């Protein structure tokens, strides 16, 4: 932690002239998920530097609110430093298109992760939002026995992943006519916002059996506590705070914790290295989401700090296995669940 973006010491940078220089541009740093994502990347990149895989690395976070314009400016100045590969967690799935093309034209390998992007020259690495939505809704509906009243808490409406996820949720719900949707709130995949949104409707809805959300269960649980109502089945976020709460409150009603994987940034690093090494990597890679089920709950909960999100510990090995799995259409790799000692 600390000065990760300092890119290691300069001596090392000078020594490994032929080793690649990796830059990461992150559109937003203001939540726990993004912080975990950056922390995982910096740890892995520092290690890779020690191992002599890369010469140096650099992380640039656009300051302020999720601002595409700031990110564009920062990527442009990164281009001046001529990195060999550029990893991007975009603030906006469209605004970066021209600058990504500019980067590609400059001969830089570009890997975009955490969000689909319509830039033909870039490699894209992302989680399956369909899996995510399915993993959020299905166990929960099963948990309440296929009937009852639920609230749907949507993510950032307007974002393309959300649209896909919401569609998936709708499709699943369509199969269960006995599950009634009492309200659809905008939780924005953010516990605090979901808490307020759910609290706002709780007095006006009948008894709720479950809240299908996108990683905002902790806040929703607080809302039910405030309203003095029993905690229904929830979709928790995968951070330590939520998992500990889930474990301590002994909820066993179909609740799950599911989110995209902040370890993607590390996978993106490995992808960039393989690309630079001339390996054949598909343009689009789908990686597994992080799903915490009841059986793994204790292990995850013990290993995570409150604001730290569960991340798959991608190694170069695991990464290559997953690439093979994607190519061959096989089952996705299941990286090991960390132990509390981590």
């Amino acid at each position, binding site marked *: 932690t*600390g*000065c*990760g*973006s*300092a*890119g290691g010491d300069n001596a090392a940078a000078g020594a490994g002239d032929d080793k690649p220089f990796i830059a990461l541009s*992150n559109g937003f*740093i203001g939540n726990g998920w993004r912080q975990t994502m*950056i922390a995982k990347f910096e740890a892995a990149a520092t290690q890779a530097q020690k191992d002599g895989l890369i010469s140096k690395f*650099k*992380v*640039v*976070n*656009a*300051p*302020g*609110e*999720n*601002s*595409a*314009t*700031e990110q*564009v*400016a*920062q990527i*442009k*100045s*990164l*281009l*001046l*430093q*001529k990195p060999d590969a550029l990893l991007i967690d975009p*603030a*906006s*799935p*469209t*605004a*970066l*298109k*021209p*600058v990504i093309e500019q980067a590609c034209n400059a001969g830089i390998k570009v890997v975009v992760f955490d969000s689909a992007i*319509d830039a033909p020259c870039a490699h894209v690495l992302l989680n399956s939002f369909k899996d995510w939505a399915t993993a959020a809704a299905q166990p929960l509906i099963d948990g309440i026995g296929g009937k009852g009243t639920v609230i749907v808490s949507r993510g950032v*409406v*307007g*974002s*393309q992943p959300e*649209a896909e996820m919401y569609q998936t949720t709708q499709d699943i719900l369509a199969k269960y006519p006995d599950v009634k949707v009492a309200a659809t709130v905008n939780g924005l995949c953010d516990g605090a916002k979901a808490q307020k949104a759910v609290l706002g409707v709780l007095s006006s809805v009948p008894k709720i059996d479950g809240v299908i959300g996108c990683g905002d269960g902790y806040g929703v649980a607080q809302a039910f506590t405030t309203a003095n109502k029993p905690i229904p089945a929830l979709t928790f976020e995968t951070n330590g705070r939520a998992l500990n709460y889930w474990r301590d409150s002994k909820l066993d009603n179909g609740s799950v914790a599911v989110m995209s994987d902040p370890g993607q940034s590390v996978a993106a690093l490995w992808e960039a290295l393989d690309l630079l090494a001339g390996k054949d990597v598909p343009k689009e890679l789908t990686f597994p989401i992080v799903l915490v089920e009841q059986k793994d709950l204790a292990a995850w909960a013990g290993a995570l700090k409150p604001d730290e999100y569960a991340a798959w510990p991608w190694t170069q090995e695991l990464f290559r296995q997953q690439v093979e799995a994607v190519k061959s259409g096989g089952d996705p790799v299941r990286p090991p669940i960390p132990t509390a000692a981590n």
Partner: protein
Amino acid sequence: MTNLVAAAVPPRALLRRTAPAVVSAVALAAMVAVCASLQPGVLTVPGLTLILSATVPLVVAAQAQMVLMSVGDIDLGIGNFVGLVTVVSATLLVSSPGVGALVLLGLVAGYAVLGALIHLRRVPSLIATLGASFVWLGLGLFLLPTPGGTTPSWLATFGSWQPAGFPAPVLPILVVSALVWLLSSRSSVGVRVRALGSNPVALRRAGLRPLAARAVAYAVAGALGVLSGLVLASQTGGGDVSSATSYTLISVAAVILGGGSFAGGTAVPWGVAIGGVTLGLVSVVLSLLDVPSNMQSAVQGVIVLAVLAGRVVVGKVLR
């Protein structure tokens, strides 16, 4: 003797007025120097193009903010408005250019109406534009819930224009600033608008309608907002209503750095251009310097404060 006195006063007053912009310019030069020392490529034409291009829409938005600040108002909706324009240009302007153009004109008219209502109902512009910013956001999300779309080819061509010999972004910055300068400082419309910010009572006594002046100011700000959005869309190639939210406060800061004030009455288009470019370059400097990621916001804040502190020092010296 009196002529001597008269001649001695204005240059000093002029100096006092331009000092803020000069300090910003010095800061700008310093920042470019730092960038260049870290990355010599900055001083080449492609380098300057790279680092300056992102500041163009910001400068244009700051000019819009400046026009409103010159009537003593403030626009907390400009960021979302620019975002909305990018959305319109990535959707309607492509599917049916005529309708798109009409909608953009309608948005300018909407700004004028907003200004007129602010005037007639005597509500504070700060809160009215804050309310309007929710409306712009809502409209943008309504048109394009998902960031995306593609801008018309002529816009994209403009965005990727790379003339030889000079950095392309300099041209729109100079042209827009010159236009705003002509309009606000040299034309009679500008006199009305600034008079409104300076002393509305005088404007009314002169038989001019403050309502008209305010509506004109808002219309001009709206037009500049549309221009900013088009430029932004030309650079991003798509529409995203929340792509420019940070412009709201940054544009205010740019006006202040350029020597404008909240009191109204003054128009400082050239200062605003300098202030806007300065602020736009802060994130470039940050990404060139190896500032720890968590500390980047703080450094940005400190740079702004330092430039303004420089102003104070210069102001003291000039007095």
